[in-house]
Each structure stands twice: as C-alpha cells, then as structure tokens.
C-alpha cells in the first residue's frame, strides 16, 4: 500500500525543533545548576552563621579566666555542612590592652563543589602558607563573627 497522506511533521521541522529545544535545554540546565549552587550556598551560610553564633554564646557562658585556655585555637566542624572547618581565636591584646576584655573571632570555612569558601583551603583549621590572603594572621571566611567579651 502506498502512503500518500501529508499529515505529520517534515524531517526539517523535527530537526529544527529538536535543535531549538536542545539549545534551550543546555542554557536551562546551566542556569538550573547555578540555582542549585546558590541554594546550597544559602543553606551553608545559614548553618555556618548559626554554628558560629552558638560557639560565641558558649564562650560567653564560660568563666572569663578559662576562655583563652578552652577556646583559643579551637577547631570544630559544623554538623550540617559536610567538609567544614571552624576555628576560634581569642585575643587579649586589643588596644587598649585590658585584662578585662577579650576579642573573640569565629570563622567557618567549607568545601562547596570544587572550591572552598574561606581562606582555609585544605580545611585543617590551621593558617598554612599562602592561605592568609589579607595578611591579618587569621583564617577569614564569608561567615565570621567577632565580638568582645568583658569580665563580669
């Protein structure tokens, strides 16, 4: 039997439509991945901020004389962020120097995809050679809380 009907799509139409869809989907997928990265970043920033705040609250509830011994240089991980590392700095040399005033800094770095958020590129909680981009002697990160604690 010979097919004579012309109902349907021509080959050119199908190829053209497929090409348009494929081209669009590449762009759409790229943007979709970007969105997923943004969402993961947001989740991690929130989790890191909460964790840093928790650490500062802990420090403030510690007897003043034990703060440096217990917390200076403390390294920790954030449960909600895989491959994360936080570090605490307690400094009592802030000008004007005071034995009654400490400066606390909590920085949290984490790996996201193939890059690390923050200066601690190997996530070991230690400032290694080449990591201190701004030369301030501590690990800095997007999520970094600083405060001062006074002797009660």
């Amino acid at each position: 039997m010979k097919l004579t009907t012309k109902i349907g799509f021509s080959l050119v139409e199908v190829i053209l439509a497929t090409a348009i869809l494929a081209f669009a989907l590449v762009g759409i997928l790229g943007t979709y991945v970007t969105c997923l990265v943004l969402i993961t970043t947001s989740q991690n920033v929130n989790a890191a901020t909460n964790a840093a705040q928790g650490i500062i609250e802990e420090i403030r509830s510690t007897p003043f004389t034990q703060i440096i011994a217990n917390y200076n240089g403390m390294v920790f991980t954030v449960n909600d962020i895989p491959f994360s590392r936080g570090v605490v700095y307690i400094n009592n040399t802030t000008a004007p120097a005071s034995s009654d005033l400490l400066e606390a800094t909590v920085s949290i770095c984490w790996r996201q995809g193939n890059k690390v958020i923050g200066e601690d590129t190997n996530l070991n909680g230690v400032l290694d050679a080449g990591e201190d981009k701004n030369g301030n002697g501590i690990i800095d990160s997007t999520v970094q809380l600083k405060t001062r604690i006074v002797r009660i």
Partner: protein
Amino acid sequence: MNNRGAMLVFSLLVVSVLAVLLATFYFGSINENQLATRYADSTRALWLAEAGIAKVKSNAGIASANGFIDDVRYTYNAIPAQIGATVYYNVVSTGTVTSPSGRSISRVVNATMKLVAPSSANFQYGVETTSNVLDYKTKCIENTENPANIAKTGSTQTFDNLFGISKSEMKAISQGLGTYLSGDFGNTINGSGVTWVDVAPGQTLNIQHLNGSGIVVINGNFKVNGVPTDGFDGILYIIGQLETLGNSAVNGTVFVESSAAIGADLSGSSLISYNSTNISNALLGVATKAIVSWKEG
C-alpha cells in the same frame, strides 16, 4: 488544515514555559542567597553591638565607646546615658556591617547598666595617714565642706575597704585601661582614670608636677613640688611617705600609708583641699558595672 510549522511553534512554547519556570526558580534562589548573606551580616552586626556594650563595661568610669574590629567595615558605637539621678545607665549600642558594595546593616542593643562605685564617704579628710606622724602648716590643708575634718592620723582604713578592690587589682586596672608608670618617666605625673606608679624599693620618687585627675597610687615614698599652675583633682594614695613642697595642689583627698609632711618647705604654698565631688568622680574609675536588663532595638 495546513500544520506546517506546528512543531516549531510547539517547541518554542515549551522553551518559553521552561524559561519562565526557570526564571522564577533563579530569582527565588538569588533572593534566598541574598537573605542568607543578610542574615550572616545581621548576626555579625549584633555581635558588634555586643562588643560595644562590653567596651563600655570594661572602660574606666562610664564613657562612650566606638570603634571597629579588624576592619573599618565592622563598627560599633555605644553611648551611655544616665537614667535620672540614679546609678543606672541606659547604654545604646549599634553594630554596623558595611558590605563592599556599600550596603550597610545595623543592629541595636539597649542595655541597662548599674554602676556601683565605692562610697566617697570612705574619704572624709583632706589628709589621712595610718601613721601618727603628720606635719603640716595650717594653711596647707583645708576642708571647706567639713572644717572639722582637715586631717586624721592613725587611720585604720585599708586599701581594700577604701576602694573595694585589692592593690594588685588596682594595678591591673592601671595597666589595662589607665596609666602605669615605673622607672624614669620624667618630672610629671598627669593622672587620668587610674594611675599606678611603682617606685624602686628604698628610694623616693621626686617629681616636679602632679596634674590631671582620677586616682593616683604611688607605690613607694613620694615627694612632689609644684608650680602655681599645677593641680590634681581626685584621690592621691601613697603606699609610703609623702612630702609636698612648692605650689603642689590636690583638690580631693590624700591618703598616706605612712608619715606625711605637707608644705614641708618654708617658702612654698602647697595646698590640699578636700573636695567630695572630685573624690566621687575619681572613684568612678574603679566602679563595678553590671548589666541588669537587655533588649534589642
């Protein structure tokens, strides 16, 4: 009916629908990311505001505190204001984080601080000594507030009772927030807040000028001269012997843990004038401060 081009139109429609959905998702993600960044900056600002409160609390006396931590983009500004004529102060502290783009986020903390200074009533005399040896010319000590209380010898008051803190604590305050002097520091003591001066054992610190205000503690024997423009407002505490000469002037009180000779020279007009206001102001330097209430905003 001619259906040519329908596939093309359909594919464009599908792409359009997907693009709209994706745009919604994209802007939602961007918005969420901005909220997360804002939350991080806002939390940072809150702790900067807390740093301002801590700074006011650690300062000698009661005074505003402002500055930044590490970077000028992270600032705090704490301003205390007395509540009526009470010992309570309302401290409003603002922490501000400014992003590299210039957008800033502030958080404000309001704390009520109770300021408790040692009582100025602990100091009743122009000059008070633990020794029974006090030589002075009548014109060299005055107490216009209570003329009967010009001088007292054989005092049983102790440093801890007078100031509410120990000598080592007072020295630590001077080293942290006030002025600590020792060795050869020149001919002048300019008091501010709490000043502690260590004198080498067995020696006498001999200076020409005593100025400024607050609490000055001399840990050793002390001899002071002075010119008519000199004047110290507050509490001069000597852990040793005292000798005043020339035109040295103290407006407040002097406490000596040994003997004292006021106006020891014949020609000078050294003067110690009791002043309870200056004593009260000086004692603010060792006041304890407690946060009794806290709120945000």
